[in-house]
């Protein structure tokens, strides 16, 4: 079904891209105002719970994807139901990143272009790379993440003259319940790495998956925190009132009246990372569907699923404010079953049933 192999460092890089893919623009925990960076840090800590659960599961069933694990542990019918929920979630994540992409372009860069043109051109590259397999996705990502990190550092340096450290204080201004909710919001973001349950079987060294994912999480958290600090420092309290605060920050760049209005930088970052996020989601959804239906290859389902994904993007998120509501109020709870509950009970049942049996796990 998939012959490619990736190394654990490539997996880490993929995890970073997947996490920062859409969150550059929609920073998690932004309702915590100046404390956004703190909620990201707390969210990272909380996200270790789901990550440890599902990587333990993956290591217990080395070489098996989540779909296959579900089948083994729960039997054919219940297992397939669990897998369906999981695939729906990943499919949903992919369509969400398409939706953000459209929202960004419709409001900022290409205002008059019909959104279907934007979606189709974006989808084409996602389909192309998904059909090429995980190896190509991982390698493409290596280049893109290098560019992204360089641009991020550049972006940080360029706002130093308009950066006001006073904007960062006081750190916590909101009630503790709001803070906890915001923490759960960013934790549910980091928990999205469960998508890699489908990619672990293609690792060079399968035992290294926990370390690779955690490395990816930490780097992504650092990147997101620096970006949050930058936005708050430049925009101050009003940062919350923008839909895309990062975009607004780069608009304010002004170095000696020559380097001005570099809002293309966050767009570029978002496009490259969002492309990886959509592609990985599309790839995993296709691979999972193929495994669910016992197909010989996942390639024929890539195009139909991709088309469904952009349809879902336009139908689920008619506008950006409904998307924001979803991310802030619904996703933290919506993600819980897939990220924590299902893996946890699967792991527990596997322990109780003493799965995998000897011989099944080489």
């Amino acid at each position, binding site marked *: 079904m998939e012959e490619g192999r990736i*190394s654990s460092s*490539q997996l880490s890089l993929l995890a970073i891209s997947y996490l920062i893919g859409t969150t550059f623009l929609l920073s998690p925990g932004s309702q915590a105002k100046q404390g956004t960076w703190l909620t990201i840090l707390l969210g990272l800590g909380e996200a270790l719970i789901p990550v440890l659960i599902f990587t333990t599961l993956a290591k217990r069933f080395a070489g098996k994807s989540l779909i296959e694990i579900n089948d083994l542990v729960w039997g054919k019918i219940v297992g397939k139901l669990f897998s369906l929920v999981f695939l729906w979630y990943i499919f949903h994540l992919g369509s969400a990143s398409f939706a953000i992409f459209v929202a960004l*372009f419709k409001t900022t*860069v*290409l205002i008059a*272009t019909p959104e279907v*043109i*934007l979606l189709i*051109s*974006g989808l*084409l*590259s996602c389909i*192309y*790379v998904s059909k*090429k397999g995980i*190896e*190509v996705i991982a*390698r*493409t990502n*290596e*280049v*893109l993440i290098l560019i992204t990190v360089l641009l991020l550092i550049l972006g940080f340096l360029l706002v130093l003259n308009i950066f006001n450290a006073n904007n960062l204080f006081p750190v916590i201004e909101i009630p503790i319940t709001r803070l906890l909710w915001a923490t759960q919001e960013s934790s549910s973001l980091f928990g999205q790495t469960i998508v890699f349950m489908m990619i672990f079987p293609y690792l060079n060294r399968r035992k290294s998956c926990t370390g690779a994912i955690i490395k990816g999480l930490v780097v992504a958290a650092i990147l997101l925190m620096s970006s949050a600090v930058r936005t708050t420092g430049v925009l101050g309290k009003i940062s919350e009132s923008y839909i895309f605060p990062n975009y607004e920050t780069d608009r304010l760049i002004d170095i000696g009246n*020559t380097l*001005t*209005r570099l809002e*293309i930088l966050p*767009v*570029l970052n978002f*496009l*490259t990372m969002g*492309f990886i996020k959509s592609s990985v989601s599309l790839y995993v959804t296709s691979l999972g569907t193929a495994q669910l239906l016992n197909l010989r290859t996942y390639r024929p389902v890539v195009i139909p699923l991709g088309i469904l994904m952009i349809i879902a993007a336009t139908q689920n998120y008619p506008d950006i404010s409904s998307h924001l509501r979803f991310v802030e109020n619904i996703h933290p709870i919506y993600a819980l079953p897939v990220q924590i509950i299902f893996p946890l009970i699967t792991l527990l049942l596997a322990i109780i049933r003493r799965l995998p049996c000897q011989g099944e796990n080489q």
Partner: protein
Amino acid sequence: MIRFLLRKFGLAHLRKESPSTPEGKLLHSDLEENLALFREELGNSPDVIIRRFTLNLRNELKSAVLFIDGLIDQQVIYDSILYPLMIEAKKEKWAVKGHLIDFIEDNLLTVGGVDKDDRMPGLVAAVLAGDSVLLVDGCDQALAISTKGWEKRSITEPDTEQTIKGPREGFTENIRTNTAMLRRKIADPGLKFEQMKIGERTRTKVSIAYVKGIVNEKLVEEVRRRLKRINTDMVLDANYLSEFISDAPFSPFPTVAFTERPDVTAAKLLEGRVAIFVDGTPVVNTAPTLFIESFQNPDDYNFHFLFATMIRWIRYLAFFLGILLPAFFVALTTYHQELIPTPLLISMAAAMEGVPFPIVIEVVAMGAVFEILREAGVRLARPIGQTISIVGALVIGQATVAAGLVAAPTVIVIALTAIASFVVPTQQEIGIILRLGLTFLAGILGAYGILVGLLLTLIHLTSLRSFGVPYLSPVIPLSIEDQKDVIVRTPLWAMWTRPRSIGWPRPIRQGFGQSPTSPEETAGKDWSRPDDKKG
């Protein structure tokens, strides 16, 4: 599918028939009958020469030498075949023992290569390759005597790959000269040539060259396999082979490299690559090929490394300008005017005032004009070439701007692109395709279109392989020790390993830490190669 269609339309006979078997007619013992056989095969071409003479050994024997005029060296035929057989043979009283033809081969002929054969196909092939065939009345065997010699071009510097410093020699059309030039560069017994004949009609000599001990044996096996499955009529140039053996036949990116320079070929072989020589062309294929090779020029290693590094950056810059500049220009002027500094924007707007076409059409049209000029300039004879440049510069450059058909900034952009596209010659063909595609995408979607185009290109590049080696290596997948020759060209004494993806069977190229130091420090230092120490 294709076979089915062919059958359906009764076109099955159009398919290539398999090569005929080597079985053929045997020689007779009568000279006239043998000559008739040859005439039947070779026809009455005026260049087929039959020189009859009388051989005086025990008794007078009618004999003949048959060769093709122009393919042979007259001097060799006279000095080493006719003179001994006609004059020397008479001088002594020979006691002929054994078979007559063996006796001639052993005692009279003073030529290096002599083969005995009794079948027509082999002999005819030998004649066509420039050998002379000696037929003697009463013998049912003949001798194919190596008398090859034809007009050759002298060794000159290749026009397409010139260097400022460094050797001034390039390959010629003669495969033997070429292999000899390579041997002169690499005096290692490990340098091996494997010859085969490809092309049913042209019977072109093709040699695989590699350095045993450095090359990956599997790579040689793969090259051999891919060459052997070629079944075609003609091989007239190296590209006739590379299109058959390329990994990605539909990709515009070359996965087999070309060079006309012995020094480049030698360097590539010593990194563990395989070269494919084709007779009749100065162009040599090398494989596997990496994307980065297009940016590595032989002059990089002939100049100081700091300068070479800077020039390499210029080359990268020129490559990206060559493919991106028109697209950026279109995107900026059509969609993202806010990114242009205001004074520049005003002057550009003034220049574009009154131009009747959208910018993307202007850019594509001017690009087409440039390509037409380039193609005309390449094909035309030198004296007429000047006319082209005058017409191009004056009429198209000056007059179109003056007439207001094209804006001056467009002409500047196209001119800069044109110059930049010549800096990296091996990627020039791709440059044209990418430039056109990206310009269209920029016209439709602005900077986002450019990004989509670049993403698709990047995906394509990462999925490419050349003989099993990832095309973008050593950047993707990253190998740290190979970064010595990518962004920077490190000093030669620091390049102590061969490329990881290619020459890894024996990775150590030279001793480590040979940077020049003062004599006191050098004293007592171990210069031997790590490989040698292991034994």
